[in-house]
């Protein structure tokens, strides 16, 4: 119990929370764009895992930044199927989303299976070093935990600012919101609903892929099947928990990561509590936040419904 009084315990947990949050931030921000525009992307898990594998396979022979970018493009490629099938051909979004998740897991598993010799070398990258923010990272206790991270984390925070701006200050962002709320009304005002939804979905594919790439290149470095371990679905939890706000998604991702790290850490504090109970902590916190925020949260009214334009 005495560990709980030590500052290092908490600083380690905060740092862990930020590391665990990083892939979630990319993925959940992308998905927030899509959902604000009315597209329920259950293929996020698929985008992430295909981004993870592609980033590794490119980064191994070349460089991490290139791999990172390709990871995003791979996610976008998978998302283009969502565009084709759901947005353009009006197939049910839930069905296509699940289909794309299976497709992503299957494709990555198969590529890994076929390109790895048993007992041979797997593709691998070494993990990035931390980039400390000067001065701030020297603050005692929390300094290093908050201000000493890899560039994937810093980039994700930069992305939050850009995405927040795009969502609330650009024409695209406002049109996306309009399209997600009431596509008929938006169309009546001359907004090209399908185009906006297409763009939002591709953004979510790209960022989902980047999330997988950040997971791979930032904290794992070597592929295993099912490696994303439902993080795509956790990103969905984060978005709803954050009531479809970009800033909220970033904070929600951190909150989730923090409590996940806390669960790991408490194993050595409460030795007798079963690990399953500790692992339930972040989900329980999500439920509490969800319940509290339900007063003001409002789901985009057009979420999950296809828009069929008048021919």
């Amino acid at each position, binding site marked *: 119990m005495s560990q709980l009084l030590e500052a*290092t315990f908490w600083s380690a947990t905060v740092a862990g929370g930020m590391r665990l949050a990083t892939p979630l931030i990319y993925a959940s921000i992308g998905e927030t764009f899509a959902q604000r525009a009315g597209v329920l992307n259950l293929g996020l898990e698929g985008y992430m895992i295909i981004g993870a594998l592609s980033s590794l396979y490119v980064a191994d022979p070349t460089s991490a930044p290139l791999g990172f970018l390709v990871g995003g493009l791979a996610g976008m490629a998978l998302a283009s199927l969502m565009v084709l099938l759901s947005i353009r051909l009006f197939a049910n979004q839930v069905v296509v989303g699940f289909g794309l998740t299976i497709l992503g897991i299957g494709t990555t598993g198969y590529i890994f*299976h076929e390109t790895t010799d*048993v007992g041979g070398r*797997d593709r*691998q990258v070494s*993990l990035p070093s931390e980039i400390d923010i000067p001065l701030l990272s020297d603050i005692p206790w929390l300094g290093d935990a908050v201000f000493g991270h890899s560039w994937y984390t810093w980039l994700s925070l930069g992305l939050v600012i850009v995405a927040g701006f795009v969502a609330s200050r650009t024409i695209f962002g406002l049109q996306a919101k309009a399209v997600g709320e009431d596509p008929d009304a938006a169309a009546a005002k001359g907004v090209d609903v399908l185009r906006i939804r297409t763009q939002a979905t591709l953004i979510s594919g790209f960022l989902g892929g980047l999330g997988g790439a950040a997971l791979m290149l930032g904290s*794992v470095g070597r592929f*295993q099947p099912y490696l994303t371990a439902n993080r795509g679905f956790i990103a969905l939890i984060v978005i709803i928990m954050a009531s479809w706000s970009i800033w909220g998604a970033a904070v929600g991702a951190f909150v989730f990561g923090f409590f996940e790290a806390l669960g790991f850490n408490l194993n050595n504090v409460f030795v007798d509590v*079963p690990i399953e109970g500790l*692992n339930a902590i972040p989900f329980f916190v999500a439920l509490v936040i969800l319940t509290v925020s339900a007063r003001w949260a409002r789901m985009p009214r057009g979420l999950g419904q296809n828009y069929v334009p008048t021919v």
Partner: protein
Amino acid sequence: MARRSSILFKFLALLMVFGLVAAACGNDDDSEDDGALKVALLLPGVRNDNSFSQAAYEGLRDAVAEDGNVETEVLEEIIDPTDSLPALRDFASQEFDLILGHGIEYVDPIQQLYAEFPDVAFSMTGGILVPGSVTAGNVVDWLYNVQDMAYPNGILAAKAVIGETIGIVGGPEFDFVKTMHQSFRDAALSVNPDLNFLEGFAGSFVDVQAAAEVTQQLIDQGADFIYCSGDGICIGAAQTASAAGIPLSVGFGSQEQTAPDVYLAATVIRMKDLYLDFFNQVRTGTFGTADGEVHAVGEEGYVFYPGGIFNAQVEVLPVNMAATVDTAVGLDELQAALDELVASIEAGEFAIPFPG
């Protein structure tokens, strides 16, 4: 309502027609009987999981290379209990001579199937732990000693660690994982009773990022050595240990590629000799219970093949001499300690105790 379902019905009809056409076109390549033994292997994971499944795959591959007259089929990623019975049954009805169900998930289906296919030999894994399991004229049971995958690591860790805190990383908190951790602790304490331990679980066998994070947390809390009892997830533990410059040993499979600087040693399962033995038994008709009758767990006549360091089914991999991490004693000395342990087990002077 009527409209859509009729369309879906037509779909189904179309699919069936298509299938019948395809079935008519494709002819089954029934291999002519050239006397080769037909062996099927079912794995819970992928063949290149660097762990439990890979051990069986490599064992079969090597055994086949040595035997020379065996045809094999390998089925991977059969972990859902709904899938294991039909998969086994499919092999049995394809007249395979020997089916190796490499995982506890195949015990129940083998128990349900063996009587229906008396000419097919089944090897199951861990039936001895499942109450009511039986062996028969065509069913035998195999299991490795889980403690053998941990005890040598504990000896190594206690000798190598600079400091007094050892971090243990596991996948899910399963009983056999906890048993491994306890055996690891027992071994380390037998060398140095002053050691203390931190323990963390990633919660699954696939979540590599969680394993990396758990490892980081243990290191942040003061761990000077990391033992990872899992398999694929140990990639995460190895990456993190490497970044922190902390020595590492692994329960299932080497992590030398992931962390050549800090990885010291690992334990692996070796199945080749057992499989060669099985081939021979099937050919000579000596497979299964001695009297050909059914014998349940606990009865005399239950056919159980234990695996461990004592019969070289568990191998302690040589210490990674290229490691650059600081250790309390030299790498040669670590190797000598492991050699000594293995020698005493092989000579029958010492048996690794089952913890608890």
